[in-house]
């Protein structure tokens, strides 16, 4: 299969449909899930989809090393390529690597000032990111002003910014208080919850839509791929 077909058939299209067009440039999205449920795999899935559409991704982490995150991308990519019988896998992989930058900071060391600096360095050298992923940002200690600034940055870059948040519980009955505090600044909030054979995605917030529809997208815990459900 060729890259563009792979993209057209991606479960991410289904997710976008369920979310009335997806997250959209200039917006913040949050994925909430229990420990080890697959938040990173979700982010990597979103990133690979963007990369296969020739977008640029900046992946920021305060929890893992560069090598670890890269391995994760490689694993998911290989799984995806094998699953879709991707043509010209080596070349596509090289292109994907080229358009992705990983940045790792010590825990609690990321400020919006640092983020802006990183985006500036990226834009001047490799290129301006169209998607930014942030793992391990502590919502409790990050101020509301910082979230406002983050939202502004998304607007300036016309990029989507996804953040992951850990919850203690596996089933997300309600928003964690740290997220609720800034709920108005976030456009989309998704919950990742383990079910019998897959990890299901559920919308907790979908822009201004009151009627939250079923997303029909899940994460396969074996292959770490996003799938239709």
């Amino acid at each position, binding site marked *: 299969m060729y890259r563009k077909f792979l993209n057209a058939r991606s479960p991410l299209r289904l997710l976008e449909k369920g979310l009335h067009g997806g997250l959209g440039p200039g917006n913040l999205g949050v994925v909430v899930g229990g420990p080890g449920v697959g938040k990173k795999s979700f982010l990597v899935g979103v990133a690979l989809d963007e990369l296969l559409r020739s977008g640029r991704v900046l992946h920021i982490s305060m929890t893992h090393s560069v*090598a670890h995150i890269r391995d994760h991308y490689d694993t998911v990519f290989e799984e995806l390529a094998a699953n879709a019988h991707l043509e010209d896998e*080596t070349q596509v992989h090289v292109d994907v690597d080229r358009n992705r930058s*990983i940045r790792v900071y*010590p825990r609690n060391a990321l400020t919006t000032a640092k983020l802006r600096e990183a985006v500036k360095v990226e834009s001047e*050298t*490799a290129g301006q990111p169209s998607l930014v992923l942030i793992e391990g940002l502590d919502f409790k200690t990050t101020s509301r002003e910082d979230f406002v600034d983050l939202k502004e940055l998304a607007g300036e870059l016309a990029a989507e910014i996804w953040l992951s948040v850990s919850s203690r519980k596996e089933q997300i009955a309600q928003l964690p208080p740290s997220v609720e505090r800034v709920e108005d600044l976030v456009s989309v909030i998704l919950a990742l919850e383990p079910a019998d054979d897959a990890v299901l995605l559920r919308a907790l917030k979908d822009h201004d839509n009151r009627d939250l529809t079923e997303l029909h997208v899940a994460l396969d815990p074996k292959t770490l791929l996003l799938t239709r459900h």
Partner: protein
Amino acid sequence: MIRDLSTIRNIGISAHIDSGKTTLTERILFYTGRIHAIHEVKGKDDVGATMDSMELERERGITIQSAATHTVWDGHHINIIDTPGHVDFTIEVERALRVLDGAVLVLCGVAGVQSQSMTVDRQMRRYKVPRIAFINKLDRSGANPVRVTQQLCEKLAHNAVLMQLPIGLEAKFEGVIDLVTMKAIYFKGDNGEHVVTEEIPEEMRDEAEIARESMLDAVSMFSDELMEAILEETVTEDLIHTAVRSGTLSMDLTPVFLGSAYKNKGVQKLLDAVNRYLPSPLDGENTGVDLSNDEAALTLASDPNKPLVALAFKLEDGRYGQLTYVRVYQGALKKGSTIINSRTKKKHKVGRLVRMHADSMEDIESSSAGDIVALFGIDCASGDTFTDESVQISVTSMHVPEPVISIAIKPIDNKTVDNMGKALGRFVREDPTFRARVDPESNETVISGMGELHLDVYVERMKREYGCAVETGAPQVAYRETISQRADFNYTHKKQTGGSGQYGRVAGRIEPMEDGTGDFEFVSEIKGGSIPTEYVPAVEKGFAQCMTKGRLIGFPVIGVRVVVDDGKSHSVDSSEMAFQAAGRGAFREAYPRARPIVLEPVMKLEVEGPVEHQGAILKTIMQRRGTVIGTTESAGMARVESEVPLSEMFGYATDLRSMTQGTAEFSMEFARYLPAPAEIQKELKEKFSSKIVDDDE
């Protein structure tokens, strides 16, 4: 023979250039009684450590940097194994690390963790070598052991724990406080040989208590007993030692020791720590491959009664002639016995077996599993495995990576041509990733290896050790060719020019191998004897011949699977030669249709520098067609990991220096082969085809 294996320590001392490895090694040999006077390393600030020690060795007639030096401390046999300081020597590093059971990571108390330490440390992690750390040079101005310990945690991801506190720093550095015994330790006498234990100075009591508590906190993770003892306030020294040892062996803990080798402080306590915390040969697991079972992995037992398995890890042309250093992994090596080289299958008689000391060597009768000794007069290459005749085992896989870079060399002075030959002969035997050949077209001597620096070092050694200075040509990158799609062939080789003719037909397909980097695979799916069995190897040979020189740019072809499923023979005119020719012809026919592409070697490049220079660092990588994998920021430093084609890396050191005002450092190793960009492929193809025209004329 050492009977109690638990008293053996095979250790490496790994250090960044200038962090004082030579001085530390010399002090260790002095305190353990192997050398009798201390002499300072000369020209510390302008020459690298290896050269320092070589000069020192020459002057003093002692061996500090021999491949393995044996010494004894407090009833323990310590073999200090020389670890090469640079990563360009992939195979050499790999081999040196294999024979180590543990290592001392020496860090400069001022400069701390530098990028070179990172590469060496990463390799030690890869080979699962437990480490303890020694922060040296605490007498220097700007020394800060706490900061260096933090760097160990942040940059190298060690769980580093200070086991001592310094008493004074810089010019006032006097001694250390042992946080296990809670005593102050001073090193008195002209050479610090008298270790004096006193009470902790009053003004440092509180600080020491706090440091001990945090040490116990970290260490108690590795022993439930210790944790209980802490709660019940019944902590003993032994409980702490056991916990530190178990954390160190599992590589979850790095105990940190302090001192200044130059000022003769702290070295004896470090030796105690080597005995206490680093593993003996019994603690680790060593594996080999079973050559009688397709290189299946097997575990070697440190048991003197099992069949012998020993690895030759270093050859040395010493003052005493050709020495082969071996580590015995299993069984025992005895004088007068017969051993067999697993690679060459040659038998050797063990004439002389010696243990190397700094200033002498000692003849021994036998050596058992876990020990490191040297053999005389055995002709082999380093990396060879010796066994007794009962087993077919190799410690290392027989697979050696192909060199990625070549340069042409020419002696400046014709008189030294012979020496060049001698030097090359020896280097090739020592290092399988180093090759030397005479190019038949240009009649030049070409050397190949794993990186620019790898070759630089050999060029330097030729000059220094063999008095043979050479001119070097422009570096040549080792490209490869491969195919990117399947192509079928059906080729008939037919020749009828009087006498018996030649006839052979082969049909089948060539296709890319899945992982892309395997060398060459030949599969025969011939049914009903359409090609007689005796000719099948000839067909394979025909194809294999084509792999050595591709038709795109003249470089070797890799990653090709040939499947032959049909053919035809002639009862009179078919011969091995005819089928070989048919194989070659079939490949020629199919290759252009299999969409051949050029692969280029890509290096993993790590650059580290101050955060404010990261833009400049990234630019040096982008300019070189590099792919930035990621950046790690911490404590004001940025570490950029990337992959860059080797062909773009020449002169990188100079460029990086000027772009970052000399604040950044880099390290590099071969990563993998990747398709070269279209424009570069085109350029290479044009160059190659113009050469072919020349040849034809």
